């Protein structure tokens, strides 16, 4: 009775292990792809961003900070973010889409009289970086979430592979041996009885 139960459990465990292993492999494949992209994108963005900062600070330095703040007070551009969740291998990842909306006047929210040309340049570069920056956000978040999932899956796979399955096998073996032993002793008893009767 118990033996059949255990056998079914072993079968389920083996199947689960196989499925999880497949999931882990696929997750890993995607993760590696993504993380490479993430790495490159980040290096890229950081570099460009630092350049843009340099431009911006350099351009902004001759002016008082209140003045600059005032110039940037009312942005002409609006950036909208739309997030839907997407299921990648049972990991919920955000899928982000962006839309810009500018109200005609280009990206500069100020008049040209009072601000340095460098500010314009810095803003133009920043504007170019922005989509990349937002993409980085999506990719990096996805990577983060996938890491968690991979770790979880790996733990499950290992638990099944090194704990559950061997333990089940061990128990099954033990029961089988016990049953065989019983049968043998039964047989011997029968033989003994037979000889006793014959005598």
């Amino acid at each position, binding site marked *: 009775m118990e033996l059949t139960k255990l056998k079914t459990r072993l079968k389920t465990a083996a199947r689960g292990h196989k499925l999880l292993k497949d999931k882990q492999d696929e997750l890993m494949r995607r993760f590696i792809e993504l*993380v490479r992209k993430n790495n490159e994108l980040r290096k890229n963005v950081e570099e460009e961003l630092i350049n843009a900062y340099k431009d911006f600070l350099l351009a902004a330095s001759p002016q008082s900070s209140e003045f600059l703040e005032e110039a940037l007070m009312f942005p002409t551009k609006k950036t909208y*973010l739309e997030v839907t969740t997407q299921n990648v291998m049972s990991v919920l990842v955000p899928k982000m889409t962006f839309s*810009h909306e500018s109200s005609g006047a280009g990206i500069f929210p100020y008049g040209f009289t009072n601000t340095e040309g460098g500010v314009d340049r810095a803003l133009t570069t920043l504007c170019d970086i922005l989509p990349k920056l937002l993409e980085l*956000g999506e990719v*990096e978040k996805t990577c983060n979430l996938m890491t*968690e999932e991979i*770790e979880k899956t790996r733990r499950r796979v290992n638990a099944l592979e090194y704990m559950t399955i061997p333990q089940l096998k061990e128990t099954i073996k033990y029961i089988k041996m016990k049953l065989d032993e019983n049968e043998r002793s039964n047989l011997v008893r029968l033989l003994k009885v037979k000889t006793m009767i014959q005598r």
Partner: protein
Amino acid sequence: MITMPKIGVVGDKDSVLAFKAFGLSVFPAVASDSEASRKIVDKLAREDYGIIFVTEQIAETITETIDRYDRCVLPAIILIPGSTGSLGIGLARIRRNVEKAVGMNILDSF
């Protein structure tokens, strides 16, 4: 599930000012006051911000808070270099992810 989240930028004044021109919400913070930065990030997370950009200088002081949001789908907290340059925390975080998932660092060898 479609929401209309916002984008926030948290950082020192010099770094974040430029983002204002693109209609992102800007929240000035100072690196020396980690308590205040933490509160800002928590507040933004509660208010459905989809992406929060945090400069590395600020992020350095509130790593625990940022790690906490790693597990949630939203908000995505993204580190950006501040006006004083990159501290390499962002890249280190990617590397840490790889090590956690794969068990070893495979990025440098390619």
